[in-house]
């Protein structure tokens, strides 16, 4: 069964025809060729597929593309605006919050959403917020530091 959907992806309107069962993550990766969003498991645990759906971080492997009809989807490719990196992206490099980079896009989306709703999260709040995003490389500490750094920068602080 095919459905016509309209999704705004990283600010750009996309119209597409999709199968009922097409997962949002495959729509993003294969039809839109935005391969920054990754796939890491088959039981909705790992979070590497995290995108923002109407501003909320969700696991795009557990959303059907048809469910995103009429919604705004933000992926890692959309974090950068006008050639300028989002503070969280800069912070990840500054604080060495990535190694292999595979969990990074999903982690960035979750962290960007966190900073949107909480301007000054505590360490515990950061760990809570990223507890749906698995990472095998970093041991999480530098990711926490990156979010703290970005929050500080976004509040107008100097490093």
């Amino acid at each position, binding site marked *: 069964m095919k459905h016509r959907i309209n999704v705004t992806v990283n600010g750009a309107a996309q119209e597409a025809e999709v199968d009922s069962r097409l997962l949002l993550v495959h729509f993003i990766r294969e039809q839109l060729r935005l391969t920054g969003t990754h796939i890491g498991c088959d039981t*909705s645990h790992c979070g590497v597929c995290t995108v923002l759906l109407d501003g909320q971080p*969700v696991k795009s*492997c557990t959303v059907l593309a048809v469910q995103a009809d009429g919604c705004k989807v933000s992926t890692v490719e959309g974090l950068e605006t006008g050639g300028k990196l989002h503070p969280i992206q800069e912070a990840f490099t500054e604080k060495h919050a990535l190694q292999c980079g595979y969990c990074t896009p999903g982690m960035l989306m979750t962290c960007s959403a966190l900073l949107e709703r909480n301007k000054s999260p505590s360490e515990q709040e950061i760990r809570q917020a990223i507890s749906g995003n698995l990472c095998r490389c970093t041991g999480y500490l530098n990711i926490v530091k990156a979010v703290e750094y970005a929050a500080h920068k976004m509040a107008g602080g100097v490093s």
Partner: protein
Amino acid sequence: MIPAPFDYHRPGTLDEAIGLLSRHGPDAKVLAGGMSLLPALKLRLGTCGHLVDIGRIPGLEYVKEDAGTLRIGAGTRQCVLAQSETVNSRYGVLADAVPLIADPLVRNRGTFGGNVANGDPANDGPAIVIALGAELVVRGRQGERTVAANRFYKDLFVTALAPDEILTEIRIPLPPPRSGSAYRKLKRKTGDYAAAAAAVQVTLDARGAVQRACIALTNAGPTPVEAVQAARFLEGKAPDEKNIAEAARLAASAAAPSADRRGSVEYKREMARVLTARALKAALERAGGN
């Protein structure tokens, strides 16, 4: 991780949704948040020819208190429930439990109604609604009816819902004064289901004795377990260590967990006891503070 083919429907009204469910019978499943259904479909567990997405039907997402009842629309996302001032200030069991359901990403999509209506005793919702003495409002082809939460769960993944019925609202009676509720959950890690968990609501009388209690256990059998004997034992008794311990022991004896990665039957039963005791202590403290 690819689901088998199915047809997808997005009805605009509840009646349309009910119509679709009636037409397709057991081959149709309700899609709300999708956080239980979609993972199952991706693993090709069971068949489903038709998905009926109720996620856009207006009027299913709300948290409001009126006339002595907390009414939660079944489509209310768990993250919304977690942030509700109303819920967090008066319903300790929900305030404790919702932030422990799965992980924050899942809670952005998962609905409280889905968690309650799934019929999965591993979900936290069932024990909670039983402990709170909730009434579940369902609507089907024959119209609307209510089912008491402690009569809603029949067997593993089998509830009182007929194939054409949809859960629309969870009605929780406003707890009387000197009431408190709590949830204590043991899990192997963040995101895991409960190895054991206890949902408890207590009400104290004017003397400070327990007037009424309700205890329900998560993942302690094919359906949520209401520890009736334990609750009756507490009635009229002083909320002291000895009575809490005995109530917890009785609650554990009602548990019939299965052995798995999270523990042996013996361990899970003992944890039901430990967590019931802890939940009772917390609920009693909250009740005393009222």
